[in-house]
């Protein structure tokens, strides 16, 4: 299933900046960064539980927030893209060659 994860982490403190980096890193381990604090993660339910647990042990619920949007398995028709920041389709054809 595809899960869209967005977050706000309060970065007014040094600890906040650290949390932001850690959250981003965990999201990146499971998915693709599509915008600054927005990740698309193609995961199975186990992987999602794992990721959720990791994220929620990092953030401070007093100052930060996390939102999960479940796009299911037919997520492709629920997403449209406009503008720069080309992203790849994790279920599509992955060929890295000279012509991007």
């Amino acid at each position, binding site marked *: 299933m595809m899960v869209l994860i967005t977050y706000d982490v309060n970065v007014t403190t040094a600890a906040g900046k650290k949390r932001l980096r850690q959250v981003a*890193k965990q999201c*990146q*381990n*499971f*998915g*693709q960064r599509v915008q600054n604090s927005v990740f698309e*993660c*193609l*995961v*199975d339910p186990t*992987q999602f539980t794992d990721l959720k647990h990791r994220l929620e042990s990092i953030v401070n619920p007093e100052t930060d927030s996390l939102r999960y949007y479940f796009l299911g398995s037919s997520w492709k028709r629920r997403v449209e893209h406009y503008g720069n920041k080309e992203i*790849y389709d*994790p*279920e*599509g*054809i*992955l*060929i*890295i*060659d*000279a012509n*991007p």
Partner: protein
Amino acid sequence: MRKLLNTLYVTMPNAYLARDGENVLIKIDNEIRFRIPVHNLEGIVCFGFAGASPGLMHLCCERGVTLSFLTEYGKFKGRVTGKVSGNILLRKNQYRWTENEIITLRMATRFISAKIMNSRAVLHRAVRDHPQVVDTTLLTDTMKNLASLAKQLQKVKDLHTLRGVEGQAAYLYFSAFNQLILSQKEDFSMSERNRRPPLDRINCLLSFLYTLLTHEVVAALESIGLDPQAGFLHRDRPGRPSLALDVMEELRPHFADRLAATLINRNQINANGFVVKENGAVIMDEKTRKEVLVAWQKRKQEEIIHPFLEEKVPLGLVPYIQAMLLARHVRGDIEDYPPFFWK
């Protein structure tokens, strides 16, 4: 049912594969070109000289992702895999079976009869879809002969004779193969199957597709715990994935031969995409190779009803299903091995 995960193909010789956390990175001139979480992948195939860091190799081994290295023309060079997995009892039984003449003959007969019948089905499809264009008489005759060879197989008493029948069937089938080519006939024609090196464009294309299929079947057998090197029909030879070659026999016509014909008939590839060397060897250029890889990946996502399981599955999972059925038979859970018959 297992999910069909993606395969990442790297065709840039100056690419370098590295690891960052759980991500696979592809760097070009030390710049990150691409990153993807490893759990979305089941294999990485590198063409040419793409290098990989030990860190990435660790990650692939831990996660059961097969990392293979091929030459830029698709010849298999090597593979990085993790610990030998699976059930030692299964593998021991497999070895015992490959030493047993009666069982070897029975298994080999299964693979080859499916191969012959699937080749026949490929010709049959051509007659059905394009009765006006193809030489129906030739194809019908060939189909009849193939069917009678398949029947003969049931009475074969030793591997030697079996190989003879297989050779005859392959000869008949490939002599009729030109009939499947409906467009670009002057540029794409084959007189016989040849390899190392392939001497015409069709042979070149077939060899490349067979290499891709080998990669899939080896990975499937290994993931199920069978030893891809201990085969029944193909005998032991160092470095040869004999069992994978056995299982491939039944998959070749549908996975590779038909795809080759489709690519040519739809003009997705053309004669200019091939280079003829001084020694007569024919090789593909980079653009054509990419076109073939794209078509291959698409074909793997097509869904079919598996003839034995009667379940809808993506074609890319068929090697895994056959490996699973084979393992069940070797373990004694099912009485016989049901090869893949394409309808």
